[in-house]
């Protein structure tokens, strides 16, 4: 079996989880295996949706003790489920929870782990992964020697594909005992927009923005075209009040949106490392020699303070982003 740990939000499967589950289904079809989707929480209402993404079996661990995420409790649950089901592959999306729990479960299982992968296949009955290393400056093909193989899938890379599965629901017992650590509180950022790592469209600003307040024009463009705003390290470190969670690059977030619009960003190697996996790159820069243009599918040489508002205006006029 290929077991996929899935996360729910507001009673719905999170998109990165649906992507991981869909990829699990493809791998299972290629290797004649079954797919199990695993959910855990105080309530798993909504888990039935996993059948739409090809789950043969839906495993639910429902208990008041699982209301808050606990690394060790969830890792125990996953490892026990792998053993109980005789699963050979354990997957999850490379989200904050996925990246926290899968390596811990892997260690419990003595399993190799490939994180944040952008490609998966089954070769001779074993998982094989392709993953960016050096923040995307290179790709490593990873093969496994362990009996159980584990991986987390990078959001926005694998398509979430609907394919009916039997979706037989089975209850799992929650792990007993004291949990070593528990999440006590969630501090949500204002706005509640999707995270950069999961965004389909990103509008990023660099030192060329000149001031944090000017990021307002990027917000306006992002709102018009259904995107979120990121930044270069120069902008984050400039003392403009931008949080590090906005930083794109080798020491920030590595992103893979469909569209990345770089405004007033020169294209330093550390920035490029974090965004070169974007499908389409647009550069807006007043310096025609800026290295970012070498990467861009579309370049605009000009003053971003003129171009960005025009883009917002035109996007609204064309009704872009309203679909």
């Amino acid at each position, binding site marked *: 079996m290929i077991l996929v740990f899935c996360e729910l939000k507001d009673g719905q499967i999170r998109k990165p989880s649906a992507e991981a589950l869909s990829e699990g289904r493809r791998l299972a079809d290629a290797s004649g295996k079954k797919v199990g989707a695993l959910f855990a929480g105080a309530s798993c209402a909504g888990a039935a949706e996993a059948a739409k993404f090809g789950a043969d079996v839906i495993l639910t661990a429902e208990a008041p003790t699982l209301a808050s995420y606990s*690394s*060790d409790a969830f890792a125990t649950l996953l490892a026990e489920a792998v053993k109980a089901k005789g699963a050979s592959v354990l997957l999850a999306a490379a989200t*904050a929870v996925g990246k926290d*729990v899968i*390596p*811990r479960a*892997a*260690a*419990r299982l*003595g*399993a*190799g*782990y*490939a*994180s*944040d992968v952008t490609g998966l296949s089954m070769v001779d009955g074993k998982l094989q*992964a392709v993953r960016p290393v*050096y*923040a995307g*400056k*290179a790709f*490593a*093909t*990873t*093969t*496994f*020697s362990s009996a159980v*193989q584990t991986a987390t899938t990078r959001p926005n890379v694998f398509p979430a594909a609907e394919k009916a599965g039997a979706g037989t629901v089975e209850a799992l017992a929650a792990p007993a005992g004291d*949990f*070593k650590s528990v999440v*006590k*509180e*969630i*501090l949500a*950022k204002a706005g509640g927009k999707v995270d950069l790592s999961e965004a389909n*469209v990103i509008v990023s600003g660099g030192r060329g923005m000149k001031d944090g307040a000017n990021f307002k024009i990027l917000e306006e463009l992002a709102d018009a075209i259904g995107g979120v705003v990121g930044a270069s390290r120069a902008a984050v470190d400039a003392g403009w009040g931008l949080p*590090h969670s906005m930083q794109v690059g*080798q*020491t920030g977030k*590595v992103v893979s949106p469909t*569209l990345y619009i770089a405004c007033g960003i020169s294209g330093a*190697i550390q920035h490029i*490392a974090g965004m070169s996996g974007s*499908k*389409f790159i*647009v550069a807006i820069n007043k310096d*025609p020699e800026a290295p970012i243009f070498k*990467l861009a*599918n*579309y*370049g*605009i040489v000009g*003053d971003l303070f*003129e171009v960005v508002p*025009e883009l917002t*205006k*035109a996007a609204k006029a*064309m009704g872009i*982003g309203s*679909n």
Partner: protein
Amino acid sequence: MKILVALKQVPDTETRIKVAADGKSLDPADVKWITSPYDEYALEEAIRIKEGKGAEVVALSVGGDTAKEVLKNALALGADTAVLLKGDGQGDAFAVAQMIATYAKDKGFDLILCGNKGLGGDNAAMGPMLAELLGVAQANVVVKLELGEGTFKAEREVEGGSEIVEGALPAVITAQKGLNEPRYASLKGIMAAKKKTIEELDAAAVTSGAHVSALTLPPERPAGRLLPGDAAGQAQALLQALKDEAKVF
């Protein structure tokens, strides 16, 4: 309180990646080596705890002789002792976790600080694997850490914000930018470090779970084009191209 800090030596962020003749590793020619940036936050946090409530700080690296540079720097910054677990540096994160777990097992560490990911390998896995092997609590991608009596409270970065994790010590905490501002080594620290020795031990024999079988460079991006006209014209042309050619919208 006894603190272990795991520090990895990695290629500098400026490194342009060249694949070695074996087709699966980095060509080390011209590579400048540094301490993985996130590990610097881990070390700084340990030193601040030492300065605040008192602690013994042990810096540890798994690697070859060159990794001594990382440890010398850690001693100069304020680590009390340094340990090099000598290995070929070829294992996966699981192998490194097993080596460090074997070393740390019976030494009574209350806190183990790591980077949230090693620059380059980018696995973000060693910390949680080590926590599991030692049977202790973990908190990853931490931007704020408070210690109580045998407990910790950590703020960690998650999608769309952060969350507060509470747990018992001992624990493995992996550091994220924002946890603190790492200091630079003082001349006094550098001189003092010269007198200290680095303990060298053979790393335990372990088995990896995963192996890199090929390292490849990303495909060249297709040549792009510049959009002509004034700002309004460029904006119009861009959106049209994204719609019609790229089909983004």
